[in-house]
């Protein structure tokens, strides 16, 4: 029982990363209809950002948590303005290729500069463990889970309780119609893209103290995150977050009980969901 609960908790912690990344992908896809294949690389840049800020500037974790997502948001907005925007009128395949290319360029640049071995990050706050009743758990990982939950809830409130959120949801559901109601949807596209990228950066910084920081860390993770997004429903914010945590737990329990299936379970689940509900668990069928 204890190992079950402990494994469930491990699942929630890896789910925290899935949820943050899937959330960013979902808001970007909703607003731009662009599947951002660079998302994993941006997560990797977030983790590297924390390492580099620490090693070269001597800035600690909290600075990284603040500065890295902000810097990546700016970089993301520039990327949207200068590159992604030029292709949105064309077939979605062009942006698929563009963002995939950006991911490869980022990975190779980092590999050229820092090599392919993992970089240690030892500026994590919250050392030691915390007593969760049935078992002790690393304090930092509890913090990661808390940050992820708070950020997801905050984004949810932003989307459902504010004017900006209403506009974003309206543009997500019916982009063309929303323009006919006097809203310049293009004005919102760049900040939303930057925001989604900042979430990837935040996840990266959070990952630095507990994951191997190397140029491939994003590529490995993002494949699972795409499965999460498909299961939750492409563009569904709620679905991505729920699926993110759920899949973290399913993977962890798979590790415990059916180790052979721990890596494939996500894709099996994705296949089943696609058969039963092609738009994902919380997705809506696209309007014709």
């Amino acid at each position, binding site marked *: 029982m204890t190992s079950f609960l402990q494994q469930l908790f491990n699942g929630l912690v890896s789910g925290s990363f899935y949820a943050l990344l899937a959330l960013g992908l979902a808001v970007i896809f909703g607003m731009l209809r662009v599947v951002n294949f660079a998302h994993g690389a941006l997560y990797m840049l977030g983790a590297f950002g924390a390492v580099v800020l620490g090693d070269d500037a001597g800035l600690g974790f909290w600075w990284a948590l603040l500065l890295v997502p902000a810097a990546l948001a700016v970089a993301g907005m520039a990327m949207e303005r200068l590159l992604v925007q030029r292709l949105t009128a064309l077939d979605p395949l062009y942006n698929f290729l563009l963002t995939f290319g950006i991911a490869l360029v980022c990975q190779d640049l980092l590999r050229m500069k820092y090599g392919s071995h993992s970089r240690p990050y030892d500026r994590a706050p919250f050392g030691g463990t915390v007593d969760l009743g049935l078992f002790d758990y690393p304090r930092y990982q509890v913090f990661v889970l808390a940050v992820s939950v708070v950020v997801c809830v905050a984004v949810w409130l932003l989307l459902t309780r504010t004017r900006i959120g*209403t506009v974003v*949801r309206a543009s997500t*559901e019916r982009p063309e*119609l*929303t*323009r006919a109601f006097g809203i310049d949807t293009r004005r919102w596209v760049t900040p939303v893209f930057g925001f989604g990228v900042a979430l990837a950066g935040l996840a990266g910084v959070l990952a630095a103290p507990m994951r191997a920081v190397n140029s491939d860390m994003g590529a490995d993770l993002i494949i699972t995150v795409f499965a999460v997004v498909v299961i939750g429903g492409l563009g569904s914010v709620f679905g991505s977050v729920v699926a993110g945590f759920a899949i973290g737990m399913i993977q962890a329990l798979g590790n415990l009980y059916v180790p052979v299936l721990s890596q494939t379970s996500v894709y099996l689940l994705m296949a089943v969901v696609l058969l039963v509900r092609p738009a994902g668990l919380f997705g809506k069928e696209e309007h014709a």
Partner: protein
Amino acid sequence: MLDIEGMSARYGEATALDGASLTVGAGEVVTLVGRNGAGKTTLLRCVMGLHRPAAGRVALEGRDITAAPAHRRARLGLGYVPDDRGIYAGLSVEENLTLPPVAAGSAWPLARVYETFPVLAARRRFPGGRLSGGEQQMLALARVLRAGARVLLCDEPTEGLAPVTVRQIGDILRGAKEHGVAVLLVEQNLRFATTVADRHYLLAQGRVVEALDNRDVKQREDELLAHLGL
């Protein structure tokens, strides 16, 4: 109020509009009749700025808006009620209502909207997707009136609705007209059209082939219905 001149539009190779011209005055309700594929919906979409016309000119209160993007046109007072009613399923009734920024001084305060449409007041927290067809149509009309639209572009607002709802929609359109709102109405229901409209344009193959008044429509109802294929 609204002047459309020589509007032509294509979808790929297919010609949807072929030099259609018409005008709608303030406080006037004008219907567009024509069989399916005559170009009625395309005309509204071109006026709203959702489809780029191949040729032609649109002016709102004498001001040329042919090059203006859709969101600018909305802010200048065009209110669009699309053929699928354009209700956001994921937004609440109130969010649907308040989504368009207020365009002009003639905008309805929310209290007045709810007074006029008690059904919407009762369902203000409901997601738009859970309203009935009639309720959605009320919401679509209420939404553009709240935004202060001075020209309504309504695409078959009565289609598929119960007679009692159709009557309510007639009341709403006549009410808007009394306040000087211009209405361009795509309508297949000729009986309904003659109860709200002042004039009618018959559209065929993307062209305005005839301008009719209510007496013409009543006298030639059978002939027109045969033309429309109804």
